[in-house]
């Protein structure tokens, strides 16, 4: 009886040792992390196939942002005036991985043609307040988003990066970076 139990446990242990690495490898994402601008062409091509007048109105990291401002997946949102709706494209490893309608009204203004990439925006935010927040509260950067008008009251025409840092026991930190100049224009906690 005891021998059978030992044998069963042994087989189970071997199975776990063999299968676990395979399962881990299957779930591993080998895609090279890239900056937000890197996937823009692929997203724009897809959006223009959907609607010729589609304009980029918003983008956001779909996977965790790394310390150099790169991520394995970015989400791009385009709005078409002719279709009257917005459609999102998730770009992974240089390819369109997911395309879906946003499901709610989002007729946001198009972002400007020139904007600093996610790496430069992250450097500015970290220098101003992000690094201190992470150190003091054990926080982390959860979201980087690019939008025009929504986060900069004084310059509503400006396209801005908004970086959202969160911590378990402290209010989140928002850092808004002017996407043209690279200057931090606003921070707040909430």
């Amino acid at each position, binding site marked *: 009886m005891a021998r059978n139990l030992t044998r069963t446990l042994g087989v189970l242990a071997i199975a776990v040792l063999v299968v676990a690495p395979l399962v881990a490898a299957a779930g591993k994402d080998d895609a090279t992390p890239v900056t937000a601008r890197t996937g823009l062409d692929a997203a724009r091509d897809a959006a223009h196939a959907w609607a010729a007048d589609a304009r980029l109105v918003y983008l956001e990291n779909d996977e965790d942002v790394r310390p150099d401002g790169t991520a394995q997946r970015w989400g791009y949102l385009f709005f078409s005036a002719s279709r009257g709706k917005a459609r999102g494209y998730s770009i*992974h490893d240089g390819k369109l991985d997911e*395309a879906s309608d946003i499901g*709610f009204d*989002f007729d946001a203004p198009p972002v400007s043609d020139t904007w600093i990439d996610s790496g430069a925006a992250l450097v500015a935010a970290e220098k101003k307040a992000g690094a201190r927040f992470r150190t003091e509260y054990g926080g982390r950067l959860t979201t980087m988003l690019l939008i025009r008008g929504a986060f900069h009251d004084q310059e509503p025409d400006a396209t801005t990066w908004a970086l959202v840092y969160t911590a378990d026991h402290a209010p989140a930190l928002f850092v808004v970076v002017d996407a043209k100049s690279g200057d931090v224009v606003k921070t707040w906690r909430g």
Partner: protein
Amino acid sequence: MRRATITRLFFVLTAWAAASAWTSVGAAGGEPPAAAEAPADSVVETLEVERDDTQDPKHPSLRFLKDHRVFVRAQLDKLRLRVTRERTGDAALIDERFLHLQEMSEAIAAARDTIGSEQALAAQRSLFASVTELGTLEASLDLMDSLLVDQRDRLLWLERDFLGHQETALVIVIRGVPHGDVPQQIVIREDQDVTRVELTPAQCASLAQGGIAQIYHEFVEPRAHAIQVRLEGGAWNTSPASVVALETARDRLTFLELDLSRLDREQAAQGLVTRVWYR
């Protein structure tokens, strides 16, 4: 044989030159000729209310926006768009390819003159007076050869230029007709986009004899697609749709061939033979 080839090549290039000349006139400000009749294709938009059964995506995307859409929406609602249009009189650079097309047009016209004069000379020669005249004929044929080479270079340039600008597009062609009941329509559907193509008896007869018909050619997103194909008309109205899964390649032309010849009305979902290729 050689003359026939030259004549055929010139016919193709002359047709192209005429088309490009018409385009130039249009681009220069002239009005394009009025269409003789309304295009056969038409788009009918219908409005229908249904429950939102959007499936969850494989990977969550734009999470912050979806989680905080009320806040972001409220920020956007404070904005007002002001559109200013400013026209400037600066000269714009012409794409050098257009200039090259003009040069090619002139070269084609010059080559056509040369061919014409050579043909006239050939018509006058009923009998060769001496071996020396055979040498003249040889020189004339060499000239034709060099003109052919020039034309081939132009065609290659045009092909390279065309292929270099390919955008992601899907072309669907059909071949064959099912046994038994002949369908009257074929319906292509993906999400909310529906394309309905009539199949006339003449077209069905042509398909039955091995013909191929193009039923769809549109720009598409470079992604995995699930396209529903359904035949309609008579007994086909009750048959289920077939779903064709394919992936369109970015900046390439994806061809999908639907072979209807093995379709069975009772088991339409299984009998559709498909083939996909890229260009």
